[in-house]
């Protein structure tokens, strides 16, 4: 019997009720959201279940949505059932002020470095991780560079802004930063404070 997205969805709802939600199927891959406290329960269920067998962690990535209050950071797991060849995507969201998420290293050894990378770039604190430290950036770094408040371009430039990228003006970073109350950000890194010349 082929494992269908509908069946996986049905099994998840049977087991977790309305705690799993936001089901969608972008480009055919079943995508859903679980509360961050339940991530291990759901991953374990998907792993252990004799029909679902999602036992391969393809990848794990962080995402930053600075404008959704209380759920600024996301962790996205891509799981693969190699027997039936079905992939699913599982998302959890967390508050940027308390980005604590249970680690999946107990279940997947592959999660070790992937979680370190996510911590390195997004500052998500994986609770229970055996060795949660920076992996690609220098140990001395005191901010999380993939968060959206660190723009790639020089923000003092006026010839190029986000409007050119079809997003209707600057995303509003810099002004909203203090609202998030992120103490980890070094003031020196604030763009535009060095008085750079406009090119």
């Amino acid at each position, binding site marked *: 019997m082929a494992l269908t997205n509908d069946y996986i969805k049905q099994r998840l709802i049977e087991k977790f009720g309305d705690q799993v939600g936001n089901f969608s199927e*972008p*480009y055919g891959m079943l995508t859903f959201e679980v509360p961050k406290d339940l991530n291990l329960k759901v991953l374990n269920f998907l792993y252990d279940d004799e029909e679902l067998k999602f036992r391969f962690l393809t*990848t794990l990535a962080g*995402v930053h949505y600075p404008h959704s209050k209380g759920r600024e950071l996301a962790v996205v797991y891509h799981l693969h059932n190699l027997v039936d060849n079905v992939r699913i995507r599982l998302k959890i969201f967390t508050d940027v002020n308390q980005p604590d998420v249970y680690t999946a290293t107990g279940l997947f050894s*592959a999660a070790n470095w992937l979680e370190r990378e996510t911590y390195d770039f997004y500052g998500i604190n994986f609770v229970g991780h055996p060795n949660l430290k920076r992996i690609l950036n220098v140990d001395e770094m005191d901010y999380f*560079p993939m968060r959206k408040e660190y723009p790639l371009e020089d923000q003092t430039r006026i010839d190029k802004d986000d409007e050119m*990228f*079809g997003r209707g003006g600057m995303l509003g970073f810099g002004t909203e930063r203090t609202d998030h109350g992120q103490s980890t950000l070094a003031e020196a890194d604030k763009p535009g404070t060095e008085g750079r010349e406009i090119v």
Partner: protein
Amino acid sequence: MPEHHIKLPEGSIEKTTTTLNLGPTHPATHGVFQNILELDGERIVSAEQTIGYIHRAFEKIAERRPLYQITPLTDRLNYCSSPINNMGWHTTCEKLLKISTPKRVDYLRVIIMELARIADHLICNSIVGVDTGAYTGFLYLMQYRELIYEIWEEVCGSRLTTNIGRIGGFERNFNDIAFQKLEKFLEEYPQALREFENLFQRNRIFMERLQGTGTISAERALNYGFTGPNLRAAGVDYDVRVHSPYCSYEDFEFIIPVGTTGDNYDRWMVREQEMWQSLSIIKQAYRKVQDFKGAEADVYHADVPEYYLPPKEDVYTKMEALIWHFKIIMGEINMPVGEVYHSVEGGNGELGFYLISDGGRTPYRLHFRRPCFIYYQAFEELVKGSMLSDAIITLSSLNLIAGEMDS
């Protein structure tokens, strides 16, 4: 803990193990990464890896670039087989934008990708030879990588970081020289590869060095997220080309070679067999390309003016072409909203692209699943308790590419 061979006087604060820094720029690491090894005599007690020496923030850069400008970033992931990365990126974009490519484009892409796989495996396998003290095979096969690079040069103009192809197809049709060189390669390479195998495959010294070292079970390999030849060497027949076919791979007949023990020798053998399979795929694809007749024989890209640059002469003479040219170059085309995961079978495993689009002109988030970043974390488990010299071979037989690991 293994038995310690250094005996210290009572109450000594000296360590009974030796710390050895392997890397970051040791020739045996074949890339910039460091291993801090704790050695008891010549046996490895623990290994700690430090990576990130050539981190270039590709995921961050990609958030401010239109799709076509991200292709050169993918070149620099696994730079031993750049075209696979390029094609992987193009097919990801095509999936997001719902573009379907003509069959001829698919087959040409398959030719290029399988050449890249051969180039990748050829380097890895001959480097294993170098690390065991046999330099000849490496130099001998290198001239065929040169030939592969010449083919790419004819197709796209560059050799190592190829930036080959465009969204929708190729930037130009393959010329006659490219096909002549391809024929030369198909004719000469099998013989060279056979000779290379004669040097190594049943060579007693080589076998003794490789067999039973760097072993991993299928179960652990899966748990560690191994993909590609390293996973297949452990006995799992997972291949993205078969499980989630892209670029019409379903039209080709080929075998997925698998190993049994997951040791260095099996990894070497799997790569060796994959080269033969790639040769067979290239032959099939070339035959299919030759079968196109008439107008079809000149098709080398899909008809997608929003993403595929118009011919230069049209840009100078036609209004629409000029507009499209400008819009593409300036990156002024909004992407559809959505998220897509797409993967291809890269030189050393499943190379995945996870793209989130918020409808802007650049990806909102782009994550690369880099296979060797994921499987390198198993290194300590692979070498713990083995000799230092075995660790060196394990390092090279895993096919670790620093560019891919550090992204």
